[in-house]
């Protein structure tokens, strides 16, 4: 997945990888611009529809109408109704809200956590650094989804819990990345000069290190949004994410799975397409940022 690719490309700890990555940087061509335009349009549309969901929705996304279950698109329901007669279009919009919200906030949680953890580990150095990094290894060794499932089963499905657990399982890559950046920045002369000038520790990190690794973290964050959305979808699909009555794209798919074979394609295709398109757009954006950043760095 793009998430892991971005990490191996950036991590300076893996020198060889970086070298290889530099070697096979694609030439700049027009299609990369087209790619980014398309992904920005998709992201823009999704964001616009999600924010304005109450205005665009034609019906209450929670309103059950058992007289009109599994209605095909058209006839008063733009995208048809689901197995409980709820309006798919409205649910899609409100579900987008949830997915985007989870994507962004979970990403913020994991980026903040990873940055603080990594910066501390890298700055402390020595035995503390080694212990903290083994902690990261342990976290990475545990399958993410497994932790999510166990936590959600114990804590119960809710929006807050989903954000929390996705945030707390996605920070390790950022921590590794920030740590390597801090390790190298620590040796830079201007940081040493700041230290020699009696600059407080937090200021050394926030003022003289953070701005230098911010581009890397931005790329991580972008790719992280897609990752968080996918995890939310997976958890919801398994019935362990967003509570079933609340719309989310993963939830909609879960409800729809039994009806695909009866010919009710609309309950599956629309949320499925939204997930694929949005995650793809975000990942493309992340890739593009990464490529740009690497190119700039190599110059």
């Amino acid at each position: 997945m793009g998430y892991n690719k971005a990490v191996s490309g950036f991590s300076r700890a893996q020198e060889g990888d970086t070298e290889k990555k530099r070697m096979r940087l694609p030439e700049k061509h027009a299609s990369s611009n087209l790619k980014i335009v398309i992904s920005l349009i998709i992201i823009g549309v999704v964001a616009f529809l999600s924010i304005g969901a109450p205005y665009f929705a034609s019906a209450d996304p929670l309103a059950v109408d058992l007289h009109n279950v599994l209605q095909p698109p058209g006839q008063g329901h733009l995208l048809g109704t689901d197995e409980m007669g709820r309006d798919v279009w409205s649910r899609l919009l409100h579900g987008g809200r949830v997915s985007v919200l989870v994507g962004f906030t979970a990403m913020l949680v994991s980026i903040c956590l990873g940055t603080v953890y990594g910066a501390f580990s890298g700055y402390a150095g020595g035995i503390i650094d080694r212990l903290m990094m083994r902690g990261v290894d342990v976290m990475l060794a545990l399958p993410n989804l497994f932790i999510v499932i166990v936590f959600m089963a114990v804590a119960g499905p809710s929006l807050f819990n989903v954000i929390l657990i996705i945030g707390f399982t996605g920070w390790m890559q950022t921590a590794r990345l920030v740590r390597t950046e801090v390790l190298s920045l620590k040796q830079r002369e201007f940081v040493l000069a700041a230290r020699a000038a009696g600059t407080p520790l937090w200021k050394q990190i926030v003022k003289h290190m953070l701005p230098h690794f911010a581009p890397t973290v931005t790329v991580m964050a972008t790719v992280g949004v897609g990752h968080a959305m996918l995890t939310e979808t997976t958890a919801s699909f398994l019935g362990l994410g967003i509570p079933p009555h609340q719309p989310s794209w993963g939830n909609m798919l879960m409800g729809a799975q039994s009806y695909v074979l009866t010919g009710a394609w609309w309950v599956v295709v629309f949320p499925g397409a939204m997930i694929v398109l949005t995650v793809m757009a975000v990942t493309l954006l992340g890739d593009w940022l990464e490529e740009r950043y690497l190119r700039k760095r190599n110059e």
Partner: protein
Amino acid sequence: MRTENTGNLLLLVDNLSVCFSSSRGTVQALKEVGFSLSRGSILALLGESGSGKSTLARAILGLINPPGKICSGLVNFEGIDLLQLSSREWRVLRGKEISMVFQDPLTSFDPLWTIGDQFLEFIRAHEKIPVRQARRVAVEMMHRARLPEAEKLLKLYPFQLSGGMRQRVMIAMAMALNPKLLIADEPTTALDATVQAEIIEEMRVLQRETGSSIILITHDPGVAAEIADTVLVMYKGRVVEWADVWSIYDRPAHPYTAFLLSIFNDNLCAGKKEISDKTLLLNNRIGTGLNRGHNKGNTSVNLDGGDGCVFCRHCDSTDSYCLHYSPPMIEVEPGHQVACWYPLTGRNSAKPVGEGKVSVGGHRIT
């Protein structure tokens, strides 16, 4: 913290050793370094690359990063034992009492912030004064360092200034809070010769005005001669000679010092053609002999430490004694100390420094 009234003595370094541990063994970057510095005087640390000059400076400022550490010794600044300071106490001391100028003024400014940002940050880290007042201090200091249009310069980013200007800003910054001690780590190495002379002059003027002491690290005997009161010659992490500037240039007692000065003099005196020949020759000699060391690999610091004089493998008067016993500091004339068994000035009048304390390998020095 202050234990005693130290009078005119500002800094006392005694028996200071710094070790770097690696999986292949421990390197001693500094070995039993000792010297003192009185108020208002300028000390030059003279030595080639890898002789431990910068390590010494960093050790004084408590900036040795792991895996390096100070393994023994004493650094006493105005009666304060610097090696015992907490990081909070260090933060107050650094920049205000002891400040430092680094070799390359481009890399020692953060490229993402303007000169003014960093100057004001520096001042305000130590003085709780409003921005406006801090800016006034900065501008005044920059004027004193002969930087024109200081207000305008404060708005620029480091890369927009020339090397000489950057170094002036650096020095202005370091002197802004009237530090008692300024450590300048090769402040002129990254600059060309004319600017170099100006910067040295600037430092001397500011030093006279503020009464600070300066430790100037350099590999250029010319720079040292120009500015220093006393000179400390280092080789492979050891102090080999310590004397006032006149005696050391007039009567170098250590063979290494003599060698260093001969290179310098040859370069000054010889004609162009001769210079190139001679430099080549000397470079060869330095390259194969002095700088690399014959014995182990090509590190200029012995990995195993080893006994004997650090210079014994390149010295003309080496005998088996030199190979096995490290020479202690002896005083060949008042205020002129050298670590050599056979000082060039003769050792008739020589007596060990710190009488009775020094004994090597069971042999009492007589």
